[in-house]
C-alpha cells in the first residue's frame, strides 16, 4: 500500500530557460561553453525565435543565426576593454527533444584577450531571454599554473559575473610597462632606429662638407 505525500508532477524543466556558462581563462584568450535548456512551458516562445520559417526543422542557417543572437546578447570586457566573442561550435537538439524538455543547445565561443597587467578583471553579462532565464556561470580552474583566480562575484540572478584573476610572470600595471608590453613598443624602437640612422647620415654629410 503506497500513500503519497505531495504531488510533484513533471520530470522536466518547466517555465525557465536554463543557461549555464563555464568559462576557461588562458593567458591570451578565454574559451566558454553555454548550455541552454528551455523548459517545456517556454519552449514555444523560444522555438518561434529559432525556427524562424516555422517549417518544424532547425536549419543550418537558423542555427547560425540563433548562435549569433546568443553571442550578441552577451557582453564581455577585460579590464574595461570590450571583447568580441567568436563562435567555435554549436550543437542543436531536435525540436522534439526540446519539446520534451530534454533538448540542450550547446554553444562554444572564444575571445582574444589583449595584453594586460598581472591583475585582471573579466566581466561577463548575459541578457539572453532575461524574462525567463535561469542563469548560471562559473569559471573552470585554470590549466595554466601561472593563472590564479582571486575572486568571483555575481548578482542574485547570475546575469552579471565578475572574475578577478592574477597572472604570474607579468609585470605590474604601471602605464609605462603597459605601454612597453604592447605592440607600440615595436613602433617606438623603429622610430628610434630611423632617428639614429638619420643622425648618422647627417653627421656623415657634415663631415664630407667640411672635407
Amino acid at each position: 500500500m503506497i500513500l503519497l505525500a505531495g504531488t510533484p508532477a513533471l520530470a522536466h524543466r518547466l517555465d525557465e530557460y536554463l543557461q549555464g556558462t563555464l568559462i576557461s581563462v588562458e593567458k591570451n584568450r578565454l574559451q566558454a561553453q553555454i548550455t541552454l535548456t528551455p523548459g517545456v512551458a517556454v519552449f514555444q516562445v523560444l522555438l518561434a525565435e529559432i525556427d524562424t520559417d516555422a517549417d518544424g526543422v532547425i536549419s543550418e542557417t537558423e542555427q547560425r543565426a540563433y548562435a549569433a543572437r546568443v553571442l550578441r546578447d552577451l557582453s564581455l570586457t577585460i579590464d574595461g576593454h570590450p571583447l568580441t566573442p567568436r563562435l567555435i561550435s554549436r550543437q542543436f537538439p531536435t525540436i522534439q527533444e526540446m519539446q520534451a524538455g530534454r533538448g540542450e543547445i550547446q554553444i562554444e565561443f572564444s575571445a582574444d584577450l589583449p595584453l594586460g597587467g598581472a591583475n585582471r578583471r573579466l566581466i561577463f553579462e548575459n541578457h539572453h531571454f532575461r524574462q525567463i532565464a535561469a542563469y548560471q556561470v562559473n569559471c573552470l580552474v585554470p590549466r595554466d599554473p601561472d593563472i590564479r583566480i582571486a575572486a568571483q562575484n555575481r548578482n542574485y540572478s547570475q546575469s552579471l559575473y565578475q572574475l578577478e584573476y592574477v597572472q604570474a610572470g607579468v609585470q605590474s600595471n604601471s602605464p609605462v610597462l603597459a605601454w612597453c608590453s604592447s605592440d607600440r613598443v615595436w613602433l617606438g624602437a623603429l622610430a628610434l632606429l630611423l632617428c639614429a640612422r638619420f643622425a648618422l647620415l647627417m653627421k656623415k654629410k657634415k663631415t664630407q662638407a667640411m672635407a
Partner: protein
Amino acid sequence: MKTKYTHRISILALFSLSAAMAQTATSRIVSAANTFLSTLDQKQRQSVLFAFDDGQQRARWSNFPVRMVPRAGLSMGELSAAQRAAALVMISSALSTRGFEKVRQIMAADEVLKHNEGNNPMFGEDLYYVSILGTPSATEPWMLQFGGHHLALNITIAGERGVLTPTLTGAQPSLYTVNGKTVRPLGRESDKAIALLNALDESQRKQAVLSYRLADLVLGPGQDGKTIQPEGLKASAMNERQRAMLLDVISEWAGIVHESAAAARMAELKAEVNETWFAWSGPATVTPGSNIAAYYRVQGPHLVIEYAPQRMGGDPSMHVHTIYRDPTNDYGRKLTSK
C-alpha cells in the same frame, strides 16, 4: 506479489552475503556478476555487455527518465524474476547496505511517481538499466552501470579498488510514505547539510552562503572531467567538530559503494578535508522531517558533490538532483589508464 518478490531478493542477498564472508569484496562482486550473466540467454548477454573502453556507453546516463534519454543494456522490465533478482544481488554486492537501500528507495520513488501520474509508463522500477563494461574480473578493470530516472551508478572495479564516480542520485518525490512509514531517499543528505550550516558561526556562515541563486547542477550529466573554481567556506576555517560534520555529509555519497572501497575513499577525502569547501544557496531553514529547498556544494581537490532541488512547478524540496564526482578520476581513469 511485491512482498514475495522483496522476500526473494532478501533471501538471495543473505545467501550471497553469508557465502561470501571469506571472499574479498571484488571476488564477491565478480561472482555475483558471473551468476547474473549465467542467467541470461545469448541475445540478452549481447545487450548487457559492452567494451570496457566504450566511451559512449560510459557517458549514457542522465537524470531524465529513460523514455526521454534512452539508456542501453537490459532494463529490469525485460528480465525474468530470477534474472532480476540476480541483477539486484550483483548491484547490492557492489554497494554498502546503506547504499543499496538508497538505490531501492530512489527506484521506489519513481514507482510512486508513476502511480501519482496515472500509471504513466515513463516512470517506474521496470525502467532501470543494468550494463557491464568489460569482463567481470578480480584483477582486470571493468565497470558496472545501473541507472534510470534520477539514478546513475558508474562503478569501476580495478582489483580491490572500487570507484563510484561519476554517480547521480535524485528523487521525485523525495518524501513519500510506504505502509505508513515515511521514506526520504536523500533525507540524510538534507539533514546532515543543514545541521552543518547551523553549526557555523556568523562569520563562517557569511562565507558559506552564496549571494546568488542556483537553479540546477553545475556539473551534471555531460560535464565529465571539469573542475570549477571552488567557493564558499574552506574547511580549514572550520573547527574539528564542523570538519567531522562535513565528512559525515560527504559519506552519504562516498558510502554508497561497498564498505572497503568506501573506507579507502573516505580516508583519501579525510586527508584533504582542509582543502575542501562548503557552499550553500537558498533557504537556511527547514520544517523538521522535510527536505531542504536549498542548493549546496561540497568541493575538494578530488571531489565535487552538488545537491540541487528542482523548481519545476512544485515544491523544490520534493524533487532533488545530486551529483558525486572526482573530476580527476571519472570512471576510474586514474586506476585504468596504462
